[in-house]
């Protein structure tokens, strides 16, 4: 017989994987995220917004590398603002930053397993998890090539492999499709759908068509605030022929942005 600790009896089901209330995050001295309310559950969420909307700052705050300046942020039911202990949340996180830095002399396998070690995975599980992550992004043929010999698209995929190596419950990808060719983008969307069946995936991107094709939900931010949240179908229904854009989703995107700017100007 042994006592059951509080951590073991704590509920593992939370209504939202990511929950932000009146969140404020600073980028330098400027409040890049200002009063954002957001709730994300399981599924693939596309984060859209113009340049300077605060997407990258929001991603960094969700990855817990930036401390919120105000408001509340809860990941997987645990608060991550202030002096909270981030360790257990971070074990369930996957993050691909916009500027993906890497060690040029490491091979793909060494890099991914180093990240798995930093994510405090059990030592015995690391080799298999590394191989699986590399297989899932389609880099198996290049697993033992040094990172400096890879092309831009392959590097992105190595970056995605390190993000998914620990089977994260919250996966944050900042501009993951940059440098991928059309075929790789299709494979990548397939991978997103696969991961999104039981994890919360947030993909920040400029490409509206990626969001329309691969995401179950669209999150639109502008000037540090949540402007709109809905399904891709609802997004396409927002625009009509009078709005700028080459596809229905792009017209919906520009219609929502124009409306929000008009409201802000009033």
């Amino acid at each position, binding site marked *: 017989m042994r006592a059951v600790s509080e951590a073991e009896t704590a509920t593992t089901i939370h209504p939202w994987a990511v929950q932000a209330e009146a969140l404020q995050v600073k980028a330098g001295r400027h409040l890049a995220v200002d009063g954002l309310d957001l709730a994300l559950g399981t599924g693939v969420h596309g984060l859209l917004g113009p340049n300077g909307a605060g997407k990258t700052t929001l991603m960094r705050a969700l990855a817990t*590398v930036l401390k919120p300046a105000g408001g509340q942020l809860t990941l997987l039911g645990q608060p991550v603002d202030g002096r909270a202990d981030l360790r257990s949340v971070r074990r369930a996180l996957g993050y691909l*930053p916009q500027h*993906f*830095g890497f*060690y*040029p*002399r490491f091979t793909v396998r060494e890099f991914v397993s180093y990240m798995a070690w*930093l*994510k405090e995975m059990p030592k015995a599980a690391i080799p298999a998890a590394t191989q699986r992550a590399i297989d899932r992004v389609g880099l198996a043929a290049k697993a033992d090539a040094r990172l400096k010999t890879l092309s831009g698209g392959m590097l992105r995929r190595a970056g995605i492999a390190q993000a998914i190596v620990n089977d994260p419950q919250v996966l944050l990808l900042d501009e993951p499709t940059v440098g991928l060719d059309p075929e790789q983008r299709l494979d990548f969307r397939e991978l997103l759908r696969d991961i999104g069946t039981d994890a919360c995936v947030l993909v920040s991107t400029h490409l509206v068509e990626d969001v329309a094709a691969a995401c179950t939900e669209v999150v639109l931010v502008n000037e540090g605030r949540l402007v709109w949240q809905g399904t891709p179908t609802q997004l396409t229904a927002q625009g009509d022929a009078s709005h700028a854009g080459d596809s229905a989703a792009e017209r919906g995107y520009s219609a929502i942005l124009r409306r929000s700017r008009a409201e802000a100007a009033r």
Partner: protein
Amino acid sequence: MTTHPTLAAIDRYAAADPGLDEATVWSLEVHLEECADCRARLAGGTTDGSRALIDRVAQELDREIAAGPAPARRRWFRPAVRHRWAVAALLPWVSMTISVLAAAALLGHWMPSLPSFVLLVAPLAPLPGVAAAWSRRADPAWELIAGTPAAGLTMVLRRTAAVLALVIPALAVTGMAGAGTPTALMLLPSLAFTAATLLLGSLIGVRRAALGLMGVWTAAVVAPSLAVAELPVVLEPASAGVWAAVTAVLAALIFLRADSFRRLTSY
């Protein structure tokens, strides 16, 4: 807690008795996986047919293992992945520091009229290495690493310890080689400056803190004492106790700021 199956049930399982229903077989197998005693009982009840089969499988396996490729030999000269970055990033800075110390010792040897160069630059000796250990420039994957659970004060201290392990012996050797330089005054100020760099670094970034402290020390202590050709009061033998106290206080304060090493602001 599970009860052990009866010997009769194990014997029937060993003989592949068709009368055993699937549920019983499953629960038996689950139990056998965990219970060494019952596995031993099962081995005792094996039929001759099973024994012959197991022998044949063992022989086949032995032959295939003998025919297959030999296991890969461990490569002794390949350091663990996680150490290689540190070697590439820290060694240049640390070797630069050691050369500067050697140059200072030579200068002191040739110009005995001036105050000891070694003593004046010793407090700054670990700072270039410490700055490289936790900086955006030296570590290309800084943003990835900052988001992992392993990042934090423990990691900073481990990297700092690696730097100190190389710099401190160098300081001690130069201190003992130069006549009239007390070893305590070589080491204590450098430890105090290391602690101050980490403490200030938790607020403004370790690299910036190191650069700032080096600038302040050079302007406030090194330059004036070279100008008047006299050792400053802070490096007199009597101030060793003060340096020790300052080091202890700064080190304690670092632990209060531990959580900021989990965020990007410390880079």
